[in-house]
Structure formats: C-alpha cells, structure tokens
C-alpha cells in the first residue's frame, strides 16, 4: 500500500465523518446543506480501475444514506457521477485527459471550476429528483438543486484551493 492509496482511504473516511457529523446539520436558510463528500469522487485518480471506482462511489453514497435515513438517493447520485466522470473530464480537459497527464491540483482555476460545476450539478439533480420523488414538486426540485449546488460548489472550490498539494 503506497502513500497515495492511504491518502485516498483517509480522505474517504474523513469526508464521510465531516459530512455526517457537521455538514448535515448546517441547514443554512432553513434547508441548505452542502454535500462536499463528493470531493472523493472529484479527486479520485484518473487511471483508477473503473469497476472499483463504481463500487467505491456506491459505498460512499450508501454510507451517507445510512446516516441520513434517505434510502438510496446518495448512492444513486454518486454512482451516476462516477459513471459519467470520464465524459466530464474529456469535455473539460480535452487532450490532456486523453494522454492521462491531467492532475487536478495543477490545472487552471477556470477548468477546475467547470469540472466541479458539471459534476456537482449532475449529482444534485439526481439527488433531489430521487429524494423528493414527485413530479408535482418539480419547482421545489429545481429550487433545491440550484441553491444547494451553489453552496456546494463554493465550499468545494474553497476546499480544493485551500488544501491543494503542491508536490507537482
């Protein structure tokens, strides 16, 4: 087990703990909670085994579900963004992704932001559609998705910028 694997395991566990014990109780303006645990999916290595990645994302989401009593909504949302992450990477980083040379810590701010926005929006749309599970509440879904996404994106970008590893 090398240092990187250990780092990912520690990140996996600490993100779950932070999400469950602190961020699920923020309730900013009554109902806004940032879902920053998906940073694990954002930062997973580019060349990770795809099946393993899908399984890990599923377990990550399911753990959040177990703590939040929300059935399987986080699991489904995590799974969807894990599956579509290569597409997002290709759209945002283009050629450098094809050659597997992309490292999220040393990309430009704009590209990083676009990548985060893409995945967070997808995650939150799936999450809230399944959580509310009622098309007569479609406005509520849109409202929750929009505001929570904004909140998550801001906090995620802050964390990504603040905790950047400058080992390049």
């Amino acid at each position, binding site marked *: 087990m090398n240092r990187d694997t250990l780092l990912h395991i520690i990140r996996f566990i600490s993100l779950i703990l932070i999400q469950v014990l602190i961020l699920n109780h923020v309730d900013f303006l009554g109902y806004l909670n940032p879902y920053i645990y998906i940073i694990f999916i954002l930062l997973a290595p580019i060349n990770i085994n795809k099946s393993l990645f*899908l399984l890990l994302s599923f377990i990550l989401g399911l753990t959040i*579900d*177990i*703590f939040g009593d929300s059935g*399987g909504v986080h699991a489904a949302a995590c799974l969807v963004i894990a599956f579509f992450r290569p597409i997002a990477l290709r759209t945002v980083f283009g050629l450098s992704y094809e050659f597997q040379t992309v490292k999220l810590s040393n990309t430009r701010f704009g590209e990083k932001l676009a990548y985060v926005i893409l995945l967070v929006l997808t995650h939150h749309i799936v999450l809230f559609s399944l959580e*509310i599970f009622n098309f007569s509440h479609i406005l509520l879904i849109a409202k929750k998705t929009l505001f929570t996404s904004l909140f998550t994106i801001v906090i995620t970008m802050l964390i990504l910028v603040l905790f950047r590893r400058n080992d390049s």
Partner: protein
Amino acid sequence: MQQIINFLIRNKHSLLFLLLLFLSLVFTIQSHSYHKSKFVSSTNFISGGMYGWQHSISDYFGLKDENMRLLQENEHLRNQLSLLGVDSVTTKHLDTISFKTPYTFTQGRVIKNDYSKIDNYILINKGKKDSIVTDMGVITDKGIIGIVEQTSTNYSRVISILNSNSRINAGLKKSNQYGSLVWNGKDPNIVQLETVPRQAILKKGDTIITHGRSTIFPRGIGIGTIVSYKLDENKSYYLIDVELFNDMTDIGFIYFIKNSDIKEIKQLEAVSNE
C-alpha cells in the same frame, strides 16, 4: 455462448453500473413507501452509536433549556392534577392501580433529528431492549412528534410528522370533525390538515388535537393552532394550515405511548373484517 461471455466482459463496467443503480433505486423506492422494514436505516449499531456519541457531547449545551422545559411541564401537570382533585398531589407515591388507563409512557432522548428534507426521520436512544415496538406514538410535553417505524436493539427510528408518508388522524378540539394531518414539505413549523368536512366551523387560533380514532395516540394530545384555512377545489373539504406547538427543529426528550389494549382492538377488528 462465447459471444455472450465476450459481451459481458466488454460491457462489465456498464453492467456493474446498471446493477448498482438498480440496487440504489430499490432502496430509494423502499424508503418512499410506508411501513416496510428497511435495509438502509440509521438504527444500526455503527451509525446509531455514533449519533449517540455525538449527542452526548452536544447535550451539555442544552441542559439549562431542558431543565426549564421540565420545570414548566411539571408545573402544568401539577396544576392539572390539582384540578382533578386527586388527593395524591401532595404525596409523591402513585401506584399504577389507581389510574386505570390503557396508555403507559416511556421516556426517550432524541439523538438525531431532521427537518430540512421531504421525508424526515428522528432517531431515538430506546429500542427493543426497552420494549419499544413499531407503531407506538411519540410525543413531547407540548404535542405529537410522530410514530415509531423501525426498531433495533438499542435504537428506534420515528417517522416524523414532517414526512410525506406520515398521515395522522387529527381534528378540532371544540367539535368532533376530523381529518388527516400531512406535510407539504415547505415550513417545518406548519403542517396541513386535510379532508375536514365543510360543515366544520373554523376560526383562526382554534386548537387541533389528536382524536383517538387509531390505536396509536390517545384522544386529546395537542398538535397546534389554525393559522389559515381555505376550501379545496371541489368546495367540499377544508385545507387547514396548522402551526405546531412543538418547535420541530428543537426536540430534546420525548415520550413513547404504549397502548396495552392494542391486541384486543386488533382482534376485534379482525373479527369484523371476516
């Protein structure tokens, strides 16, 4: 055969994705249907224990308020007792024989409370070990909280009245008209009372209580007061907005209600259904 295997190997990622997605959708749909024992639930040993641990720390910050609340409830109960003229007000000893009622109460402590989602659940630190079973009512000193949905050895999960699956029988205090209490998912302090017949005479500020038509809650437990009401599209039923007595965002200690006549009532109902 070879081709099938090749196909499986070639698409193994997509197939795994579909399988896991299917699994999570099953969990999701299960969580949206009322009254099924659920696989994904925070009553298990790890998450329940962790919430208990978290709560044992944060508990200290609310002790003063909790004390005040208990004092107020004691005051209220003592006043009621003196109104009833029970001569045991001055003594501390009450034996259970002198109060013939099917309802017994067990206290518990909330260790996790949600109110920002559409389907909210509350986790409580009492479970099968303390003879808590499914379908017990849960109240505080001020009013109702919800119904026990699932129990494990040490924890129980309560389906809060702030849950789209929750339907509780409730009615007016001053008359016998009743309806069912639901929540539209907007404000955690406002719930909706549906299907109250048009003949009911309503006024802002009227009290809504439980009506004792089910075996879960006894009659007369407070719920809230009317803030506004209107007739539905067919002009036959009222839709009433009820402001809760409880602040659902701030619940500390609760009581479970156990109905010891429940077996008898169920038996009688089974007979009449045949």
